[in-house]
């Protein structure tokens, strides 16, 4: 077994840019099967690119059909979303605002709690405690979103918000949906932020402690700023999760596409509309069917931009240390 072949000393293989071994010099011995295996492996890797191309094609082609009938400007700036009414209207602004409501409420929950948990795990918890707490916290990310949605609808709205806090609240509302959405993304933010905090070299902590700062000052003024771009990447990825989450909002946020100014009311999100439209009977190629792809394309573009920002931020910390 290979396990017995370990050498001593620290791992020489890190995430650095150098390849494991110099590939070009190892071609002395060839076996007939190797080239074939390499082709199969490369094909598997290329499949991921094909998936992306497929996603874009699958979204763009029906969306183009859609924009032949509905002008692009009307879609993006229209404030009335009523694709199934006799008096049809395809202004996507209400759906985008619905998504904005649930996302912002979710972030209000996830950012403070997620960062607090990350700072505790990285800076204060002993390794033993961390070994226990981290998997338990990550279970929050393992709970299916349909379960969160059910919990928001059946417990958070009627018992917590209405009975306990005494709020006047509709059965379907963006507040409950946003809160549980926030809980769902706590582990995303906590886990990635903790990685960023742990990656800050100990020399910085020791230096700060040596000149007399206490642990809180060290954490807040030295470690936290040093890890800021990694923490920002974590938050941005959390935003992307929140924007794309479907089942919670489909169950708890309501199915009325409307512009609300009060989070105790219900509003449909982009993903909520896609889920609702998908369960209806729309013939392939009809305007209603293509609407689903137009909203899907918008959702994809929004999350793509957010993801690229997150990836760029992560690259920056890699360069820093």
């Amino acid at each position, binding site marked *: 077994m290979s396990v017995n072949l370990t050498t001593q000393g620290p791992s020489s293989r890190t995430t650095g840019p150098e390849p494991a071994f110099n590939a070009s010099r190892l071609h002395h011995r060839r076996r007939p099967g190797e080239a074939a295996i390499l082709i199969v492996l490369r094909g*598997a*890797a290329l499949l991921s690119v094909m998936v992306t191309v497929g996603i874009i094609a699958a979204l763009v082609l029906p969306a183009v059909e859609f924009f032949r009938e509905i002008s692009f400007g009307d879609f993006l700036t229209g404030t009335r979303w009523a694709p199934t009414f006799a008096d049809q209207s395809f202004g996507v602004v209400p759906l985008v605002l619905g998504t904005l409501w649930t996302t912002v409420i979710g972030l209000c929950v996830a950012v403070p709690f997620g960062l607090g948990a990350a700072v505790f795990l990285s800076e204060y918890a002993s390794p033993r405690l961390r070994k226990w707490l981290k998997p338990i916290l990550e279970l929050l990310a393992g709970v299916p979103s349909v379960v969160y949605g059910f919990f928001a609808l059946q417990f958070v709205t009627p018992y917590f918000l209405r009975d306990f806090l005494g709020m006047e609240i509709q059965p379907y509302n963006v507040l409950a949906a946003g809160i549980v959405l926030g809980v769902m993304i706590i582990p995303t933010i906590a886990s990635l932020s903790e990685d960023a905090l742990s990656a800050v070299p100990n020399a910085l902590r020791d230096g700060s402690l040596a000149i007399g700062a206490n642990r809180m000052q060290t954490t807040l003024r030295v470690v936290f700023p040093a890890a800021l771009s990694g923490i920002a990447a974590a938050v941005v990825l959390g935003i992307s999760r929140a924007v*794309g989450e479907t089942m919670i909002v489909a169950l708890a946020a309501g199915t009325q596409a409307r512009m609300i100014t009060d989070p105790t009311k219900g509003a449909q999100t982009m993903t909520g509309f896609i889920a609702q439209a998908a369960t209806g009977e729309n013939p392939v190629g009809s305007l209603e069917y293509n609407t689903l792809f137009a909203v899907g394309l918008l959702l994809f573009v929004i999350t793509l931009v957010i993801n690229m920002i997150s990836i760029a931020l992560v690259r920056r910390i890699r360069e820093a240390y």
Partner: protein
Amino acid sequence: MTTLDTNRPDTSGDGRGPIRSTPRSLTGRSHDKSAPSLLFLVILWSSLAFGLIFLVVLIGVTFVDGLSRLDGALFTNYTSAFPERAGARAALLGSVMVVSLTAVMTIPLGVAAAIYLEEFAEKDKWYNRLIELNLQNLAAVPAIIYGILTLAFLSLLGVFRTNIVIGGAMALGLLILPVIIITTREAIRAVPGELRDGSLALGATRWQTVWKQILPSAVPGIATGTILAISRAIGEAAPLLLLGALVVVTYDPNGLMSGFTTMPIQIFNWAGLPQAGFHHLASAAIIVLLGMILTLNGLAIHIRNRFSHRW
């Protein structure tokens, strides 16, 4: 407080690459008792406690709500218009079938792609960097988009009854493929370079090195990541909604082209019905679903703690 902790292992080691250091000097006991510091610690504690309490309440409430329906009928009956007679048999079988097929289709592909990217690809070539960037993006694409992709792909093939087992497995497979590739790459990357160098120095080819040395060493890491991906697939409903899985299924799925429903879809369906009896049923089904997912998560954590090597 003490800052000079001589026992701290020098994780910076040879000074190569990024350092993942653990602040050993900052263990659980604080000698700093000033009021702001204590308040800060209390805030940190409570933010962690919030998530944990939420999880406990969620599981507790669901358990109390669903206990009355956690009976044999839940497993043996098909769903019905009457909550007292309804069960999740078709959904359970559907979940097991779709997710097994997902695993069979996705794991070999994901591991193969990860091997290529870690061991064979020349990392500074533009196309390999493109694949890299693309993978990071795919991992964060909303689940529902994979449903749209699968829907479009199936209608391209001329399949218009899209609520079929193979379609569901494809949608879930596309969803977890990037996750499997990324976690497998991390597992492979954690195998030390000496192992490769030793194998190659003894005359093994690159593929022999991968197959006989690197993969066996990376198996615990690959298994952990794969199990977590599978448990994500079990709980995912959004892409299946797009395929039209929100239908009443009162038969066992029996083949690749068979219609199906899954546990999360069945829960979604029951949750949306007005009768309270269906909500208890949904809670009971959630207990079963959470049981499956927690078991898989526990297994993954066990493998990670028990079998992971310290190189």
